[in-house]
């Protein structure tokens, strides 16, 4: 034992600073993320499947299999990222920096859209804007006698709007957390020296918020390119395909190898775009501005535009949260999906089996799985929120402190990959890799452990991105001083980084929890019959055409998600200075 300390001491100085940390993190993300994806890659390289590459890239099929879906996907990704940053950033600024009334309400509403499944938002869109192209019942606007053109009912425009309405809350969450850390002394100093609002914004606020803006844009981009529900519902009637709908279709009709090739190309192309975007926007400098000190500045006084801005903010929130939620709830009560607001009944919630309704399906609260599914789902969400946050923090910390070098670059790229992989492909990769025993380790297929590992890996990008936006601003000076006085890595992490970065981490943990709560695509292949989760229950109902039951389960998921957010808000009220006056 006596020899250990000097040895450790020597090692500490012999190894270049941070290398062991970097290698450790690299191994972790390598095993969790790169491993399964390499496994998919190797499946496409087998002799009997290698032809899939030429089919996809270089054949008469390529145009519709790859190029057209790819360009649609990129247009959507870039457009949605821009839209989300504008809307999310605007709302974050309104809530955090200004004296607009009802800040707390706007702040809460702006975090909700992400919890509403994107198919519900898409459904809400079509119940308003649907035209007669697909026959059946037309939407609200056509019922009023307005002719809705195809481009507003189907295809790129509605998909773009629905995805922006869904993902802007990610950008909001991240940017709001960053804005709240703007050093008030700087703002106050600028105000006292007579700087105009625009100048304060461009000179102080924007630079501080930039890492968060990049994070928000990246998250929205990745969400948009891998989203399946919205383009499937709104794009198909005009034959608009994205990479995600193509991938799903290929797997669904048994052409798995081609599906995997599409997934790999989606990852490669998106990774390039994200890398390029990050480089252009944030490659120039780093921002370390908070030192854990400084009180709140006076809020910007909006003066005469106070009420108009309130109206704009509230309208955005109402359209993206209240309308979809109302449609969702209504469709869990209405017997006919074509008349959402008539003949409401609680049968789909409470009713006992009645042979004349829905083939005798009893209400969801009679489903024997509802209790166990809820328990499994919530515990999975909690466990993954914790494991994910820890892993995310390690990665974010490593990247923030050692931002240059090959290893950091590789970690950065790998940590972002899962976002680009549609969940079903990630689930398939996990089964391929961990389904069979590896050496001394037993097969994990069908275990809760596998779900936790897969969920943790799949959601790393969220915790890393949100954590990083805050962590980058924890001054390196504090950390440096602690290191010089002999504090070890974990001590520094727990005494300095964690407390200062807690808000960003909490935000990340909520996002992870919510994402796991409602995520279907990842778990659909991983769970075994005896341990269902809520989203799988909802999917089972929906796939059998029992829409009302599916929506009722979705409402349950929504209620749990909102409760989680409210609880988290309450727990961290103390650390939410932007909501105080």
């Amino acid at each position: 034992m006596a020899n250990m300390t000097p040895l450790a001491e020597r090692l500490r100085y012999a190894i270049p600073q941070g290398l062991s940390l970097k290698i450790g993190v690299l191994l972790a993300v390598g095993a969790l993320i790169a491993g399964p994806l390499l496994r998919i890659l190797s499946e496409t390289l087998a002799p009997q499947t290698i032809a899939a590459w030429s089919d996809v890239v270089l054949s008469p099929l390529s145009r519709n299999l790859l190029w057209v879906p790819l360009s649609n996907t990129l247009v959507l990704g870039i457009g949605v990222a821009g839209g989300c940053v504008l809307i999310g950033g605007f709302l974050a600024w309104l809530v955090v920096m200004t004296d607009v009334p009802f800040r707390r309400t706007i702040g809460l509403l702006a975090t909700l859209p992400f919890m509403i499944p994107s198919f519900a938002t898409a459904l809400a869109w079509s119940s308003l804007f649907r035209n007669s192209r697909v026959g059946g019942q037309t939407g609200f606007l056509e019922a009023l006698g307005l002719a809705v053109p195809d481009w507003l009912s189907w295809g790129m425009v509605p998909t773009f709007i629905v995805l922006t309405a869904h993902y802007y809350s990610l950008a909001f969450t991240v940017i709001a957390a960053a804005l709240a850390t703007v050093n008030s002394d700087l703002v106050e100093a600028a105000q006292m020296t007579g700087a105009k609002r625009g100048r304060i914004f461009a000179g102080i606020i924007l630079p501080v918020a930039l890492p968060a803006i990049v994070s928000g844009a990246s998250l929205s981009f990745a969400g948009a390119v891998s989203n399946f529900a919205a383009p499937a519902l709104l794009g198909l009637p005009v034959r608009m395909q994205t990479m995600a709908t193509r991938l799903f279709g290929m797997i669904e009709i048994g052409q798995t190898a081609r599906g995997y090739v599409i997934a790999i190309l989606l990852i490669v192309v998106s990774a390039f775009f994200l890398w390029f975007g990050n480089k252009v926007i944030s490659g120039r400098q780093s921002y370390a501005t908070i030192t854990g000190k400084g009180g709140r500045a006076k809020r910007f006084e909006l003066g005469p535009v106070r009420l108009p801005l309130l109206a704009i903010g509230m309208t955005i929130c109402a359209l993206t949260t209240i309308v979809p939620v109302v449609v969702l709830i209504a469709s869990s009560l209405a017997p006919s999906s074509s008349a959402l607001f008539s003949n409401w009944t609680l049968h789909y919630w409470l009713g006992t089996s009645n042979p004349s309704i829905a083939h005798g399906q009893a209400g969801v609260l009679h489903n024997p799985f509802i209790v166990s599914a809820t328990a499994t789902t919530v515990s999975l969400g909690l466990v993954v929120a914790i494991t994910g946050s820890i892993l995310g923090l390690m990665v974010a910390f490593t990247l923030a402190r050692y931002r240059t070098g090959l290893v950091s670059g590789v970690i950065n790229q790998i940590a972002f990959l899962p976002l680009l992989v549609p969940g079903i492909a990630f689930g398939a990769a996990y089964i391929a890799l961990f389904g069979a025993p590896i050496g001394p380790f037993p097969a994990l297929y069908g275990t809760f452990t596998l779900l936790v590992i897969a969920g943790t890996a799949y959601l790393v990008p969220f915790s890393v991105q949100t954590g990083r936006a805050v962590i980058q601003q924890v001054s390196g000076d504090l950390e440096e001083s602690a290191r010089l006085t002999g504090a070890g890595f974990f001590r520094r992490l727990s005494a300095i980084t964690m407390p200062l970065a807690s808000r960003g981490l909490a935000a990340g943990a909520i996002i992870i929890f919510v994402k796991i709560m409602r995520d279907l695509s990842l778990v659909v292949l991983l769970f075994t019959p005896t341990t269902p989760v809520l989203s799988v229950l909802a999917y089972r109902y929906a796939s059998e055409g029992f829409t009302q039951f599916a929506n009722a389960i979705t409402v349950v998921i929504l209620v749990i998600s909102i409760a989680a957010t409210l609880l988290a808000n309450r727990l961290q009220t103390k650390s939410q200075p932007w909501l105080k006056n």
Partner: protein
Amino acid sequence: MTLKQVLLSTAAAGLLAMPAVAQDLDAMSAQELLPLAQEEGTVTVYSFTSRIAAVEAAFEARYPGIDLVGYDASSTEQIARLRAESAAGIASADVVYISDAPVVLSELLETGLIEAYVPPRMSDLLPKEFKSPLLAQRLSTKVLMYNEEANPDGAPVDNLWDLTRDEWSGRVVMVDPLQRGDYLDLMVEFVLRSEEMAAAYEAEFGVPVTLDPGVEKAGIQFITDLFANDIVLVSSTDDVNAAIGSMGQSNPPVGFTSYSDRRDNEDEGWALQVANDVTPSNGIIFPALLALAADAGHPAAARLAIDFLMGDDSETGGDGFAPFYVAGDYATRTDIVSHPDAVPLKDFSAWRIVPAATAEIRQDVADTILILQ
């Protein structure tokens, strides 16, 4: 002999007897299987339809002491699961109840993940095609349907080639065949039946069909013309049903969907009706298959469950078959009569798919459609 020794020797004898038992199980009647199944105590059924929940209740009422665990998963998911479980060495499923026959034969039967089983009492009650290579329990459909409220005098279409005329431009709806296997099978059938399609063309337009450059068969020409005529693709059969069936439409589209969805007309406010008098056919009819999972953990209970799902000897198949005795689903058993509200099977004009033939050209047809989109 101590109790322990008795137990051990019994267990050893049981092990020795295992292979013989497994072979015998196939020949046993339900009465003979019952005590063995009760010893096993449980049976897990992977099912592509949620109606397994109703079967579960009926099965447990008939055979108390045996717990039927129904697990509802799409055919694609079942295949992925069975593969993963086999790789992990887990035998979770006992019975597989699955559609998508063309894929099932190559992905599951040929790879040994499932095994065929026909209950002995069925041997005289099923035509050969429904016993081999796998047991078929019933037949489902993807056929041309129309809105009967807007067309009180019957179907507005009497020939498939009608759908390529201008008046049906943008007014034919179906699920994207590159997202759902059964719709791809429908497209494949048009190609397999190219001769009939060519004859139907001549009947409709009075001249022989002319094929575009690069198009080799009348069936492919039909698919090409259908896409050129702006066919509307949606993502689920319920979207098709709502598009065609919703009441109060002045000029509703027609489209391909499941005949049995007509049973939801009242609940959903639809007016779906099947177009049966269509030249050369109104679509496809295909089997729902029952098989044993390889290495089923509960072999006797698995066979008993399959036996139960095939229905009893009454005219409508009794409790086991009740969830499937609806208009638009057809029993494969010759002694179960067609549902009174449905077109009788012998008069139904849909083509019966031959899974092996479908599997052969499935990918080529998918590629053709991919280019058309």
